[in-house]
């Protein structure tokens, strides 16, 4: 290729206290190319892209755009150069209109008839219909992403960066997005597509750069690879296969009976007639894209939110719908929430102090209101040892100072060592390195073998297919019937998540 590349990075490095996010990265993107940036969570994709977009500056290295040196000091510089970006976590203003949000992203633009017309014409051109006067808060995730894209397109970018765009889309919405991106590429706009979804990259992208732990490990052409070979580049080892488990589910431990809850958050999801049955010794996985009712369901199961009737949730026959989390734990339920910091643990408190969050009753950490620090220390040490948590001493290590994987192991260990009858976990290995994730999966399966009933909510289909006996799908606040994991296909799950296939009501 004699053409100068559109964007080229050479030896780019960025370090933060305690971690090197990017090490000596080289990257080359041609005009009109759809280029994938591939890597697991924490591989350094987001940091690299922040540097390209001017949000942070590299410590060392060179960047060039269209042959000229490129040193953006801010996103404004990046946009002026011709780079647009759609973030994974949208920077939108919920209480303001589509037109206002777009105007905020464009320098010097005022909201008015002219802008509205432009918005409509551009959006229709690329098949992204949106209403300029709608308030963002009323739009779905897919529609909000369209607003983000239109905002970028109005500046006629030469390079469009998409950060994990399909993480909030249904498979059908993702297909529509791909059409838009292909049209853009055909017109000469390059796309930098960040993802860890291998099939998508194979379907969409012309070239790929693979990052692992901050370094470039591979550059390839996705069409020439298989999902398996790309996964190997990403993870470095052969992916773990599904553990063959012989399960003989025992007595019914947990029943959710037609749970319907109206949303509290303005942008929350109503739960409608959710029913499920969980037996001793089995792992039930609930698949779903974030924002489809998982948080609301967790709140109801934990007891942070009261159910409509006490019998809506029954623990071994016992109605617990009105019970708070403390009472449910006394009845031997345990919970692992989605966010480790700020929900599962207090970041500024030590691991020892954090044992009091859930284990007060089970491990007798409290006597007449006074805290028993000796007992808590013993428990914390037990957890740290049994689950190989890499931390200092329990009373000195602040939860916030642990790595994601280690903290998650601590939280999982804290719950498992309370010997619960029912364990409910949400995104148990999100943001956790592969090694720790495997340990956590093993621990869960061991617990199930010992008789505990386990419910796992996760966005990661691979995870669910690895550990679950049965899988159900949550979409739009409704739950499908649970089917044996071996018998359900990815296509079926994908379609159900988009609401296409008729969801059968659970028994």
């Amino acid at each position, binding site marked *: 290729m004699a053409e100068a590349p559109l964007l080229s990075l050479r030896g780019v490095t960025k370090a933060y206290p305690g971690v090197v996010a990017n090490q000596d990265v080289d990257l080359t993107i041609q005009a009109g190319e759809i280029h994938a940036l591939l890597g697991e969570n924490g591989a350094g994709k987001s940091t690299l892209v922040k540097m390209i977009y001017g949000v942070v500056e590299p410590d060392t290295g060179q960047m060039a755009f269209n042959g000229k*040196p490129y*040193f953006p000091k801010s996103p404004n510089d990046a946009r002026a150069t011709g780079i647009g970006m759609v973030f994974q976590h949208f920077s939108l203003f919920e209480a303001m209109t589509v037109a206002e949000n777009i105007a905020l992203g464009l320098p010097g633009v005022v909201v008015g008839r002219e802008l509205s017309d432009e918005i409509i014409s551009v959006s229709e051109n690329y098949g992204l219909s949106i209403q300029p006067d709608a308030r963002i808060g009323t739009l779905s995730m897919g529609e909000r992403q369209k607003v983000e894209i239109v905002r970028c397109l109005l500046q006629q970018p030469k390079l469009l960066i998409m950060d994990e765009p399909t993480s909030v889309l249904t498979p059908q919405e993702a297909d529509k997005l791909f059409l838009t991106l292909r049209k853009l590429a055909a017109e000469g706009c390059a796309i930098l597509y960040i993802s860890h979804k291998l099939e998508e990259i194979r379907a969409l992208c012309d070239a790929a750069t693979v990052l692992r732990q901050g370094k470039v490990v591979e550059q390839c052409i996705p069409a020439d690879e298989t999902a398996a070979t790309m996964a190997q580049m990403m993870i470095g080892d052969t992916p773990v296969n599904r553990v063959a488990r012989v399960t003989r589910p025992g007595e019914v431990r947990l029943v959710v009976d037609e749970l319907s809850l109206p949303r509290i958050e303005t942008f929350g999801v109503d739960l409608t007639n959710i029913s499920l049955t969980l037996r001793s010794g089995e792992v039930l996985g609930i698949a779903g894209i974030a924002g489809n009712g998982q948080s609301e369901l967790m709140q109801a199961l934990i007891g942070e939110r009261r159910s409509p009737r006490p019998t809506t949730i029954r623990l071994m026959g016992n109605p617990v719908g009105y019970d708070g989390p403390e009472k449910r734990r006394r009845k031997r339920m345990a919970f692992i929430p989605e966010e480790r910091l700020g*929900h599962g643990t207090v970041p500024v408190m030590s691991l020892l102090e954090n044992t009091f969050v859930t284990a007060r009753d089970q491990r007798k950490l409290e006597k007449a209101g006074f805290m028993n620090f000796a007992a808590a220390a013993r428990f914390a040490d037990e957890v740290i040892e049994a689950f190989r948590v890499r931390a200092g001493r329990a009373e000195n290590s602040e939860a916030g100072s642990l790595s994601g994987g280690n903290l998650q192991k601590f939280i999982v260990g804290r719950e498992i060592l309370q010997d619960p009858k029912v364990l409910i976990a949400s995104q148990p290995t999100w943001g956790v390195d592969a090694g720790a994730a495997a340990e956590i999966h093993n621990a869960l399966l061991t617990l199930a073998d010992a008789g505990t009933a386990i419910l796992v909510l996760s966005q990661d289909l691979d995870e669910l297919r690895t550990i679950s006996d049965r899988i159900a799908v949550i979409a739009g606040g409704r739950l499908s019937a649970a089917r044996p994991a071996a018998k359900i296909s990815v296509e079926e799950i994908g379609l159900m998540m988009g609401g296409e296939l008729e969801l059968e009501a659970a028994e």
Partner: protein
Amino acid sequence: MIKLVPRTRSSRSLVVLTPVVAIALTVLASAILFAMLGKDPGPAVLATFYRPLTDHYALTEILVKATPLILIACGLSLGFRANVWNIGAEGQFTMGALCGGAVALAFYDVQGYWLLPLMCLAGVAGGMAWAAVPAFLKTRFQTNEILTSLMLTYVAILLLSVLVHGPLKDPEGLNFPESRLFHDSAILPLLFDETRVHIGFLIALVVVVVTHIVLWRHIFGYQIKVQGEADRVARFAGFVQNRIVWRCLLISGGLAGLAGVFEAAGPVGQLVPALPTGYGFTAIIVAFLGRLHPVGILFGGFVMALTYIGGETAQMEMQMPKAVTSVFQGLLLFFLLGIDFLVRYRVVLTTRRRSAEG
């Protein structure tokens, strides 16, 4: 360029050092203030901040002033840690004085050891009742407690005024708006003769110890800390937020009310409209000065009391207005807030390396 980077752990040494530096800066700023007002800064600063520490009577006055500050601030610190902002302590203080004082006046011709404890109970109850209103409004209607507790402060002060002008006025007095002087059974016993230091000071010390135990050894203190640091974790742990709000407001209201009845039955000795002198607001500063820690509050109470005495000295010897005390106190809090960030953040000088001129 300068960047602020959050510390992973608060710097222990700076936590203690910053209030000291803030105090030093306040003294410095006061010197400048004196100079600007045409007074000789050196002697003025000495008279204001140093001499009270060497004068025996002034020292006892510091104890007298510190007592209500410590009592109220300990109560407030619990709430502040849990993000419950009781700004109406002045009103609860007033109601405590009013209720306790009313009991004293009701039995003005009766002697007995039981009267003082009864007055204290009434004072605590009065303060609690006044704090119960913002507690109820917050838990039931999600109404912000800052504004409700504050509005009630003005109501309480007006209530004291109207009652002292009317039903509680001394019938044998000269029609001045003040109550009878409290009789012997209704006056707090003194700790040291020839001073105004009363047993309230001992009670304040006890409250400091109890607050410490609650915060670090009791589950209620743990609930407060978790609620304040990460309220989602508090909910996850099963701590009921409403209960925490009620308890914090009632405790701080009760302690403020107790401080109020102590003030009425101690240094003042009667009910007058001018009884509330701002301890409820100053206690907020004491709580922050002491970093919401009971021992810190103990010292902070002494420091603030010193600014009161110093202000009085400045008033008498240098003809400054009474308000100069507020200026000292405001400055102290400004400096404390200003350098507090050093405790939570590190100042980092970064150099940017570029491989070509930009």
